């Protein structure tokens, strides 16, 4: 058990170091910051002095260790385009992205699970066929097209909902701003959240349906029916509960995807989150921002995967026995 956890941790650290190395290479390649800082006219002594002060005369491995040390403290320097600290920039954008992703995840769960159950229980009916066809469309339509279509329909033609920005936000403390506490914020949240949720919703729907059909075929469900339990008790008390375990794991893993797909949604709706910040950084070759985003996203993914792995381990006793028997 300890060996398993240690191995996973080692893998996570290896991934993070690789990502940090790529970010480090980015910095190395952008060119000499000394010229930028001192200008063309500086003497070679001045250059050498600053170089030593900044630790840039050290050999590359030492510089890398230095870089990782800074990254661990969240220090990525100044944005080349905005001249502000990267950590502040990202901290400002974080709430917008997290609120968007969380709203989308809840929406996908709240609609996807009941629709999946419905599609499984009403198997073969027109309703189930319709749900499956729509969900197929949901997984094959590109996210940005869904966004554009929603804007065209609800903002341009019907003029019901705003199509860009976060609207009115309320500050909670000094570092968190929320759109959840104002009507305007909610209005702005609807379209982006729906856009982001569509793919996940379709995925959850199909997953719940497949799992539910599987469970409904199993022996204990037949037994429950034989005991004379009502359909309601069988479906929701027994079948659904066992369906939900894999669904929750997958949704947990998908939380990372939501943050990735948020880049696209944020660009379509000009949502002021981290994804938009990253895309703008890419177009302007703003390396410090890119490097910081790279490391942050990798960290989020590695953390989610690690937690899910460990949870599996805690939940599923079979895994423990197998790993133990393999014994390394």
């Amino acid at each position, binding site marked *: 058990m300890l060996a398993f956890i240690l191995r996973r941790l080692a*893998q996570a650290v290896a*991934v993070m170091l690789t990502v940090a190395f*790529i970010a480090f290479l*980015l910095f190395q*390649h*952008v060119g000499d910051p000394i010229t930028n800082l001192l200008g063309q006219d500086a003497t070679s002594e001045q250059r050498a002095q600053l170089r030593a002060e900044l630790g840039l005369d050290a050999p590359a491995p030492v510089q890398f260790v230095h870089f990782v040390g800074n990254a661990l403290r969240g220090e990525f320097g100044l944005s080349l385009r905005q001249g502000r600290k990267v950590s502040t920039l990202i901290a400002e954008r974080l709430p917008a992205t997290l609120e968007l992703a969380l709203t989308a995840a809840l929406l996908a769960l709240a609609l996807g699970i009941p629709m999946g159950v419905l599609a499984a229980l009403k198997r073969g009916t027109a309703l189930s066929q319709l749900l499956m066809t729509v969900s197929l469309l949901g997984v*094959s*339509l*590109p*996210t*940005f*097209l869904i966004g*554009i*279509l929603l*804007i*065209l329909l609800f*903002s*341009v033609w019907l003029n019901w909902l705003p199509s860009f920005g976060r609207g009115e936000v309320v500050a909670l403390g000094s570092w968190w701003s929320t759109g959840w506490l104002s009507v305007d914020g909610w209005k702005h949240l609807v379209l982006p959240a729906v856009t982001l949720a569509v793919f996940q919703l379709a995925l959850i729907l199909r997953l719940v349906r497949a799992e539910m059909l599987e469970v409904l075929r199993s022996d204990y469900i037949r037994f429950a029916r034989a005991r004379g339990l009502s359909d309601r008790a069988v479906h929701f008390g027994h079948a659904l509960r066992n369906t939900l375990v894999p669904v929750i794991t997958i949704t947990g*893993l998908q939380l*990372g*995807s939501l943050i*990735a*797909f948020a*880049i*696209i949604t944020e*660009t*379509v709706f000009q949502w002021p989150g981290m994804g938009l910040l*990253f*895309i703008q*950084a*890419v*177009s302007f*070759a703003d*390396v410090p921002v*890119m490097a910081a985003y*790279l490391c942050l*996203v990798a960290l989020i*993914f*590695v953390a989610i*995967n690690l937690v899910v792995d460990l949870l599996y381990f805690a939940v599923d006793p079979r895994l423990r026995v197998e790993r133990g028997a393999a014994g390394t």
Partner: protein
Amino acid sequence: MDALRRFFDSELWADFRASPMALAAAAIAGACLFCALFAGWVAPHDPFDLATLELGDARLPPAWLEGGSAKYLLGTDDQGRDILSALMYGARISLAVGLASVLLSMALGVALGLVSGFIGGRTDALIMRVCDVMLSFPAILVALLIDGVGRALFPDAHETLAFGVLILAIALPGWVPYARTVRGSTLVERQKEYVQAARVIGVAPSRIMRRHVLPNVMGPVLVLATIQVATAIITEATLSFLGVGVPPTSPSLGTLIRVGNDFLFSGEWWITIFPGAMLVLIALSVNLLGDWLRDALNPRLR
């Protein structure tokens, strides 16, 4: 000729002709491919020939709407370019990038999968660990990051290099499924007698892999490649839509959607909706073909 006749006699062809879904999907995908390949002849106008553009014709709606002109079937954009022609040229670039990146990731994945399954041991463990890690990140994110890093490394890249970086960015996260599939089938094939026979008579391992194992593990790879074409085209369109894909001088479908998006609010919806529809049409038809091919080649469903 012989191979062709054998193909038309095969069960696969009979199965294909009996499936209306496969026929329809193939017809649509074929039509898109034809228009893309022969855009120069099929397209009614040349969207890149600045001399033929007339600003007076800018922002015309599709022919069947009020104000539309029969000269421009699907309307024109803000520069007076014919949307239909731009679509065909755009589809050419989308398809080229999509196919190239699928070929690249297939070559990479098949090679790594073969080596992993055939050699085994530490090599296998290492390749599979890398697969695990790659799988935990969504493909679009990896593509975006590679493309972003590539752009930062070569800020004033030549157009060819920009295409290369883009194709690489789409291909790199795509090799994992091929490697896993091929590794699985190779593990099975490795135990078979013909491989042992080849080993006994002293054929070099690299030659056994290439000449004997490879042809026997390619079936599932083809199915996977078909479905991946759709994914690659959508990834390309997404990157181009975000403005980090193909260079602006050679617009793909994604670029057209991005450009058209600016005119959504002034009511010219056709500039963005038609490229979007074309994209969905290509992706859906290729996906349906892939689904059919998977079922048709699956012996368990026979």
